[in-house]
């Protein structure tokens, strides 16, 4: 898979916002400085990935997971990131749990509704179709990010 050079860069607008929010009000960032930070961020991703991958390989796993990333941060001497990252991970897991429960609840509600409305029709057929569609949606959400 060939990546164009710009694909390995992060969007300028987002990078600029992050920098501005971190610095005191009224401080300017030269275009050169902003571009340099953006490049540095890409290099950071590569470095972190490579480091995290080492931990995954040590654990004989082929898939990078959250703990590999956390271990990588310690290894790279960015221990200061570990606590905020753990908090972000907790928040992310809560969010995912909420989404899953919401979609399961939707499914339950839908089943109830379908039962009530379509007692006369061939409701088995309809339910199967709905179930298939919902399962597919859930599967897409939970799928590992992979090729």
């Amino acid at each position, binding site marked *: *898979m060939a*990546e164009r050079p710009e*694909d*390995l860069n*992060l*969007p300028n*607008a*987002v*990078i600029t*916002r*992050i*920098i501005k*929010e*971190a*610095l*005191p009000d*009224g*401080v*300017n*960032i*030269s275009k050169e*400085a902003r571009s*340099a*930070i953006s*490049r*540095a*961020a890409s*290099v*950071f*991703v*590569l*470095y*972190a*990935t*490579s480091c*995290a*991958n080492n931990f995954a*390989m040590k654990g004989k796993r*082929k*898939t*990078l*997971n*959250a703990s*590999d*990333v956390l271990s990588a941060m310690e290894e790279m*001497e*960015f221990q*200061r990131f570990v606590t*905020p*990252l753990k908090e*972000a*991970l907790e*928040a*992310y*897991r809560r*969010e995912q749990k909420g989404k899953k429960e919401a979609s399961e609840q939707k499914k339950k509600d839908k089943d109830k509704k379908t039962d009530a409305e379509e007692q006369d029709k061939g409701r088995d057929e309809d339910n199967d179709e709905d179930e298939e569609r919902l399962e597919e949606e859930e599967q897409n959400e939970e799928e*590992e*990010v*992979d*090729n």
Partner: protein
Amino acid sequence: MADAVAGRDKCGEPRLVSLPLSRIRVIMKSSPEVSSINQEALVLTAKATELFVQYLATYSYRHGSGKERKALTYSDLSNTAEESETFQFLADILPKKILASKYLKMLKEKRDEDEEENDSNDGSDGDEAES
């Protein structure tokens, strides 16, 4: 798109992560030997990158020696890469800048040194024409 920049989602809640996961994933996958990446690892890497950008910016600004403290400049960043152990991995991509005239002078000095060495070697190796 404006929401992504503003850092808030549809409901006005601050986003967990502002950097686009798809782009982060492309960069991660460009690393050899990486087969697959679990979604949580992707989110954490994106978040870590944001923390990194903040840290690099504020560190460089605080340690900057520019007379103008109203700006963050490239040289603040390259100084950080050179002087801080934590940021040393950036040294190659954030090289210090030198004046072209200075660089040309350095080149000339090196050339002069090499010529002197060759002169002292003459007589032992000789200049042999290659066929």
